[in-house]
C-alpha cells in the first residue's frame, strides 16, 4: 500500500520507527485544520504559524520520546495541543496586550494562494472575513465548542471532558452556534444577493 493511503495510526507507528516521510504526510494532512483552529483564537497569522510549529514540535518530542498514547485519534490529540497553546497565548495577551500594526481581519486575509487568480483570491478573502466576523460574534462558549468540533476534530465527548460540561450541554452549544451562524448568513445574503449582483 502507498504510504500516503495509510491511516493516521499507522503513520504514527511508522514515524516512531524512524520514517520521516510518514510524519510529513501527517503534517500535510492536518496542517490546515489545526492552523484554522489556532487562527480563530489568536487571529494573527505570524503568531498562529509560531503556535502551529510549537504544537508539532511538542508532538515530535512526545512521539520520538516514546510517550505517545495510542488510545485516542492523532487528529484530536494534535488539535488539543494546539488549542491549549493558543488559549495560553490568548490569556497572556489579554493580560499584556501588544499593539497590532494591522487589524485582525486584515492579518487574517493576508494569506496567499499562489494558484488562485486575483478575482478568486478576493472572493476567498471576502468569504473568510465575513465568516470569521460571524464566528467572532458568537457567545464564547458556543465559539469554543464550534472550533473544537469543526476545526480541531474533537468529539463531543472529548469537548465535554475538556470544558467540564455534560455531552448534552456541548451538543446544545454546537446546535445554537450553527443556528446562530445560519441566521447571520441569511441576513448577510439578503444584503448581498448574488442573484441580484452576479459575479
Amino acid at each position, binding site marked *: 500500500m502507498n504510504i500516503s493511503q495509510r491511516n493516521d495510526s499507522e503513520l504514527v507507528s511508522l514515524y516512531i520507527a524512524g520514517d520521516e516521510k510518514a510524519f510529513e504526510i501527517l503534517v500535510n494532512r492536518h496542517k490546515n485544520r489545526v492552523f484554522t483552529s489556532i487562527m480563530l483564537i489568536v487571529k494573527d497569522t505570524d503568531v498562529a504559524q509560531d503556535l502551529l510549529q510549537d504544537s508539532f514540535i511538542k508532538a515530535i518530542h512526545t512521539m520520538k520520546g516514546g510517550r505517545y498514547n495510542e488510545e485516542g485519534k492523532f487528529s484530536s490529540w494534535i488539535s488539543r495541543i494546539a488549542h491549549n497553546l493558543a488559549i495560553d497565548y490568548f490569556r497572556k495577551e489579554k493580560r499584556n496586550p501588544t499593539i497590532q500594526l494591522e487589524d485582525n481581519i486584515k492579518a487574517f486575509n493576508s494569506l496567499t494562494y499562489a494558484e488562485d487568480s486575483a478575482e478568486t483570491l478576493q472572493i476567498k478573502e471576502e468569504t473568510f472575513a465575513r465568516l470569521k466576523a460571524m464566528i467572532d460574534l458568537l457567545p464564547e462558549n458556543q465559539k469554543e465548542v464550534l472550533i473544537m468540533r469543526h476545526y480541531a476534530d474533537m468529539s463531543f465527548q472529548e469537548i465535554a471532558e475538556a470544558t467540564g460540561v455534560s455531552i448534552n450541554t456541548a451538543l446544545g452549544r454546537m446546535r445554537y452556534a450553527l*443556528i446562530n451562524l445560519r441566521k447571520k448568513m441569511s441576513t448577510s445574503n439578503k444584503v448581498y444577493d448574488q442573484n441580484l449582483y452576479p459575479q
Partner: protein
Amino acid sequence: MTKTFTHNELIQYVYNELPAEQTTPLEKALKSDHSLAGTCAELLAAKRNLDKLRPEPSVSCINNILMYSRNFNL
C-alpha cells in the same frame, strides 16, 4: 411507530457521531418528518459554510517543522 429524535441527536448525526443503530431510524424519520428534515438541512448548510474557512500556513512554516523533526534525535 417512528421514534422522535432530539435536536442533540440531529447534531450528532450531522457530525457523524450518532451511533449506527440510531442512524437508520433517523434517516427514515427524515423522509417523513419535514420539520426535522428542514432543521437538518439548515444545520448541514451551516456546517458546509464553515468549511469555506480554511486558511493555510506558509510553506516555510511547514518546512521548519519537518526540518526540526529530521534533526531531532533523542
